[in-house]
């Protein structure tokens, strides 16, 4: 065999032979290619060499698997996982298509109506009722673990001071009394994305409002004020002066806008 025959220029463009070597050849072409290789010494030599070189390179690469764990690499790996997880959450929160889901995610953090919401989002037929109850309990337990501090209605000054310190932002006490809502309590949760402050309000008829506040992530663009319907309630969310707000209430759109303006004037 001469070199010219051995190194047929057409071989380097033969994607079918490459697929044969790389194990990606469709089964219905296997017999044809094997018959060709049996009759074509140049193609046989080429595929044999490609496979042999691949095996040697792979053997070299696999020798990395036996190396001891590098602590710095392991730490960076964990940090990357945390960043990617946060990225996934943010993508869910700020996707226009998933606006309603995003609102629900924020509500999860606020601990509001987990049971009803899960039922709403997964659909009533997705699993039996007792599973919903178990998930709601699990959520409540997890929320309890995230709780950093809780405040009664007469501790609001201390609550906003504490939250401002934790969030490194100036948090103002939300003033909704002029609209008939009295603050009942406040909580500060230590979530994976940072501190999350929650205020609960109640009016004379027993209607509740939940307000959640968190520092705005600078790597995420600002998003405009939006109101969405979630589980027969209204949810408004927006960001202003370095803070993300979420407000949940069963009121009209106009009233929702008024309440939002009162929260971040």
């Amino acid at each position, binding site marked *: 065999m001469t070199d010219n025959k051995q190194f047929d220029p057409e071989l380097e463009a033969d994607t079918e032979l490459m697929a044969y070597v790389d194990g990606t050849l469709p089964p219905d072409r296997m017999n044809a290619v094997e018959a060709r290789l049996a009759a074509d010494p140049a193609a046989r030599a080429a595929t044999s060499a490609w496979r042999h070189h*691949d095996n040697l390179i792979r053997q070299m690469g696999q020798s990395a698997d036996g190396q001891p764990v590098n602590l710095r690499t392991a730490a960076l790996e964990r940090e990357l996982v945390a960043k*990617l997880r946060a990225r996934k959450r943010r993508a869910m929160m700020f996707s226009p298509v998933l606006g309603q889901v995003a609102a629900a995610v924020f509500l999860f953090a606020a601990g509001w109506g987990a049971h009803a919401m899960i039922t709403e989002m997964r659909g009533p037929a997705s699993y039996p009722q007792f599973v919903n109850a178990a998930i709601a309990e699990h959520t409540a337990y997890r929320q309890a673990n995230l709780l950093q501090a809780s405040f009664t209605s007469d501790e609001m000054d201390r609550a906003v001071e504490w939250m401002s310190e934790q969030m490194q932002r100036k948090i103002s006490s939300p003033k909704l009394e002029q609209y008939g809502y009295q603050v009942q309590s406040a909580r500060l949760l230590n979530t994976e994305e940072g501190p999350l402050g929650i205020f609960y309000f109640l009016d004379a008829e027993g209607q509740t409002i939940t307000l959640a506040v968190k520092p705005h992530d600078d790597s995420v663009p600002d998003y405009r004020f939006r109101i969405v319907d979630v589980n027969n309630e209204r949810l408004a969310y927006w960001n202003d002066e370095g803070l993300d707000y979420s407000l949940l209430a069963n009121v009209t759109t106009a009233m929702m806008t008024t309440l939002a303006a009162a929260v971040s004037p």
Partner: protein
Amino acid sequence: MSVNHNLRDAVSLTSEVTHHVARLRRYALVLTRDMTAAEDLVQETLLKAISKADSWQPGTDLRPWLFRIMHNTFVSDLRRAKTRSDAAPDLPDPVVPDHQQTQLELKQVLDALHQLPEAQRKPIILIALREMSYAEAARALDVPLGTFMSRLGRGREALRRIMSGVSKSKLAVLNNKEKSS
């Protein structure tokens, strides 16, 4: 969206990243031929991935994204090395597995591989390591699939030519030894 889904998702993301880091380490070792340099390259890649986490699109495969970062990091390192010295950087002797029969041949293949242009070397390594499909590898290298296949084919044949020359010179040395003895 449910809590169970979130927990499952968190576990799978951790395990996915761990697998990808192992793949990156194999690839880095073939690229650098030195375990310490490979670990450095992996760490530098992870640092860049951490700072660029917002550029990853959730729902898309992490693997091409991570490999693309490693390619760019490796190319930047090479450029920096070239800037520091007019001469091309000396390649370290490869760290090879302890199999006597293949050790020499492996070194020859790696030497030959590093004689190839960067554009041909990377497709060969990616496919040899069986880390990705053709389409995924093309995405990782930011080239169209047709270009990738063309570079893979040309690279494989160029490698074969170089290795064929190596085999002939080995044979010539052996023949000369026999004649002189």
